[in-house]
């Protein structure tokens, strides 16, 4: 399986290299991916919980804002 390609521009030599991620970069890439997925899930869970609460109360999000204002 090929790894993602990254670009590196050395401003001192003006050399540009396009290559596959090395082991360290790929490990960090996978960590970032995992963190992103976890964050997405957390946000999704929050949205679902909020929606369920509004359903139980029988009000819309706008009405909840009005009640709290």
């Amino acid at each position: 399986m090929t790894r993602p390609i990254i670009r590196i521009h050395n401003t001192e030599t003006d050399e540009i290299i396009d290559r596959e991620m090395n082991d360290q970069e790929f490990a960090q890439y996978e960590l970032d991916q995992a963190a992103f997925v976890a964050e997405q899930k957390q946000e999704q869970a929050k949205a679902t919980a909020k929606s369920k609460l509004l359903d139980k109360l029988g009000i819309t999000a706008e009405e909840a804002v009005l009640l709290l204002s």
Partner: protein
Amino acid sequence: MAKQTFTTGQVLTAAQMTSLQQTAMLGGAASAKTASYTLVAADAGTAISMSNASATTITVNTALFAAGDVVNITNLGAGTCTITAGTATVNTAASLALAQYESGVLEFISTSSAVFVKSAGASANSMTLLSTTTLSGTSTTISSISQDYTNLAIYISAPLYSAAAALRVKLYNNNNSKTSGVFGSTAASISSGYIDFANTTTQADTITSWLELKQYTTNNIGIAGGHYGGTTALSSVFAGADSGGGVNGMTSIVVTTVAGTSTFSSGTCRIYGVK
């Protein structure tokens, strides 16, 4: 080539012609000095370079040069090199002091008087384009960023990523350490070693994200930034600091996205150094 008095019938050598050509084109090898120096008549029409870590002087005396003679002077050293009037008069509209890598031309208007014309160089608050990089790949790293400036201004124009995602910038030093300070705002966040912009990278109109990094060569980088776009109502500013000192002497940045998948199809990152 030093100033000569040519005589009728004199045959010029190829080396002399080459040297004359260099001088005519304001080039030629410089006479390297490493200590304070007093100009001599043979310096007319030549270039002089000074290199010393401490302050030095170049002294100008009278009765050595004729009207129209010029001497190019460049300071390569860390110590300031000052053009000093000895027995001659030296006037200037700028400064007689040359900081490192500054240069100027001493133009004689008589045997006893010269004008020093200092070349325009980087001065306080000036901005210099350090690099222009076309974004490509899953991420684009811009490395070996000059440490010769006080602040950096970074502009990322029209980044297009194949999957919708917020733009992310990471700051690194030579030891591969990232920013560790924490800051959050409604439009962007600076945390855990990265700065996120709220705009996505697949919007059709041109969006520019910008960052200003104050004192980026230190361990306490000030960070300000934001983004703005064409027809989309996107505009925000944020500010923070890498107070954790994670980056001591930032040397590279990585432009990527929060999602981190797919690749950039276009976009440009420009970095400016600010004195």
